[in-house]
């Protein structure tokens, strides 16, 4: 932008007005801001600015609107041809969600081979990057180089280069449970009554997040939503229950199963993979069962 500043006072004034109105300015706005300007001067000044690529031109309700371009875009487009500019703009609009190559082709109307070349070019300049999508491993999306991919693309904290880190999740799952269990006993025979005890045994996701962060087991910054996902797995494990406080915050509490392990899982048959093949006679019988031998040994 420094190049345009020392040019002439008219362009500078127009730029200042444009900066104040990020939504864009019309001819009238410019004239109001710079009243001494003649129509011819205005046209030449605008044309010059457009040429420099500082402004985008839009048609809004019949009148022309000039909008200041972002700083980066101006730099990036420097020394690029028209195709690159178009592709760049499309990618920029997609933000951190990225855009699929097919969509670029459809919108820009550039032939496939040329488009690949353009993209490669931009990539080698480190203006854009390709990111693999976790949901569909074959799908590549493009976004600006300096952007952090969205959660839906990168998968959030649970993915390292597209691979799901189940061990990390397991550890967090265990730590969250430990935190909840430390509090769970407060409900038992609480001298202040069970309602107070229950409130004390509850933990909100924010508290759990703080605990996990303080432990320092994760080098990735965990958001509250991440912790809620982990806490939900605990609920699905049957090791915790969730509840909602009157003010709307979701809270969790460690619980025990209603019954101790039932009789079926105390005998080998309950866990036997061959239970459906076990008969009174034949190869697999309870009399000859090896699992039962082992179980009766000790």
């Amino acid at each position, binding site marked *: 932008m420094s190049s345009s500043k020392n040019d002439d006072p008219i362009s500078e004034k127009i730029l200042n007005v444009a900066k104040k109105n990020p939504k864009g300015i019309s001819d009238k706005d410019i004239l109001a801001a710079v009243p001494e300007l003649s129509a011819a001067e205005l046209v030449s000044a605008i044309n010059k600015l457009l040429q420099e690529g500082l402004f985008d031109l839009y048609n809004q309700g019949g009148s022309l609107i000039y909008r200041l371009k972002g700083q980066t875009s101006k730099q990036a487009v420097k020394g690029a041809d028209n195709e690159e500019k178009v592709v760049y703009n499309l990618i920029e609009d997609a933000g951190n969600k990225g855009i699929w190559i097919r969509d670029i082709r459809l919108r820009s109307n550039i032939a496939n081979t040329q488009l690949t070349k353009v993209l490669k070019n931009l990539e080698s300049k480190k203006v854009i990057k390709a990111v693999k999508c976790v949901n569909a491993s074959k799908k590549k999306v493009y976004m600006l180089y300096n952007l952090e991919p969205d959660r839906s693309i990168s998968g959030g904290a649970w993915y390292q280069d597209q691979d799901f880190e189940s061990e990390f999740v397991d550890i967090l799952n265990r730590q969250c449970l430990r935190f909840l269990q430390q509090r769970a006993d407060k409900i038992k025979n609480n001298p202040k009554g069970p309602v107070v005890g229950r409130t004390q045994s509850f933990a909100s996701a924010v508290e759990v997040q703080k605990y996990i962060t303080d432990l320092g087991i994760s080098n990735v910054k965990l958001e509250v939503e991440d912790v809620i*996902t982990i806490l939900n*797995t605990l609920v699905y494990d049957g090791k915790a229950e969730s509840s909602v406080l009157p003010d709307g915050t979701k809270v969790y509490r460690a619980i025990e199963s209603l019954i101790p392990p039932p009789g079926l899982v105390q005998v080998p048959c309950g866990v036997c993979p061959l239970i459906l093949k076990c008969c009174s006679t034949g190869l697999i019988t309870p009399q000859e069962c090896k699992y039962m031998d082992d179980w009766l040994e000790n």
Partner: protein
Amino acid sequence: MSHQLGRVVSEILHQYFGEIVQKVGHDLFIYGTKPIPMIVKTTGLPRKQVVDSLRTLVKFDLVSFEPSFNEVVADYKLNPDNVLLLIRYPRYLLQIKTKFGSEAEILVEELLQQASCTASFLLVTVAAKYKDDKKKNITLVKLRDVFISIATARYIQQAPVADKSEVPSLEPVATIVPDIDIRQLAQAIATDTLADVSDNIYWKVNFDRFHQDFRDDIMVKAITRRIDENAGELMHLLLQNMYLTSAEWAAESNPTPVLDLRDAVDRADRTDCDRNLLQQYMDHYLRVLEENGAGFVVRVGEAGGGQYVVRGRDAATQLLLAALDHTVTERLGSKAARIFRLIRTKKYIEEDDIQKHAMLPNKECKELTYKLLEEHFISIQPMRKAASSGAMAKAVYLYHIKLHDVAQSLREMCYRALHNTLRRAQHTRAAHARLLDKQRRVRTIVHTMRVRGEPQQHIDDVEETLTPPELSTLKDVEARLKQLSAAQLALDKNLFILNWYFMYPH
């Protein structure tokens, strides 16, 4: 009435009544109802043996009969559920002992063995049996008092009475707590005959009353695990109140007002809970019980300071789910249990969503889901899109749980396991039959020698006929049999929850 149930029933009958009764019982299980000539024909047993077997089975209420098309002939029918109760006997004894003491245990044990008998016969037999046992110090008066109290508490009831038709039908009668004349009974013991006592009211054990106790126990324990002892005690009191106002197995009890509960709490004298805390915070406990008590109890109205309902059906379902969770965890691991519960929470869910919510790697998640499907813990519902939408339309597969079906297959699994333990125990017993027999004989001889007062040296000689290796084998076998019967009891507890769930129509 499944094949597995048939195997279990047959095995139980063999263990308790021997081979012939097993044959008759199994025959009846397979064919449903049939008259004696048909049983004789299919089993190939002599008629006398069949009749004797049926007599035993009818006596223990394992077989019922009704007039067939020709009204002078009876059709016989096996009651498999009652056969399964045979392995529950030790639990009945334990329950009555904890509630009413060892005299009650002895009485109930004798009554279980007799199946049904008159009060005077029962008291006289028990008193005669323990006449010489100075340690237990059992008197006729004490026995009578205990008998009356367990009859009042409905743990025993009057046996149904047969009417006068050709094939009698058994009519249940209302139980009236009897008035027992001690002097007459004492005389009977002294003269060793019951001829003088005219008593024609027969008694039998009321299993249902015991089952109510078991159910209460499970519910109270579950609440204790979830919240604490005081909440468990409150649950106990709620159940007690339920008996006063509703049918015992009602899916939902009639509402109990808080005021009544307050009275009950003030009267309660259980030692294992902090009574002051319960009195002080009863309203709080009720709230927590309702909100965090797995849906056993709900508040239904505000009359009388709030009214609470015990939901037996929901409790049974919750307990079944807990049992299922345990089973899935043990069979397929905790990750599979997570998927199982996830599907249950979401009701219907797609495969991709399972993976997202369960936080499992794609491959592992799929594998576990298919394993769950394979073992029939979950079901699949394809949703085909209309053909008009073209080749792009893919069918959607929704996973869900059919609880009733899963419960059925769990019950089948319990039957299998129970059959296997019974079979194994029987096999162990048969394999060491000679040794076990020898041990029994030695014990009888030693006992009679002791009674006769023979010198210690002779007794030792007899005892030494069992060699050390034999003794160690015996010890081993006994330990195994004990473990197997403990497993049978545990399986029976498991089946109890399942049958409780099936009691309510779904």
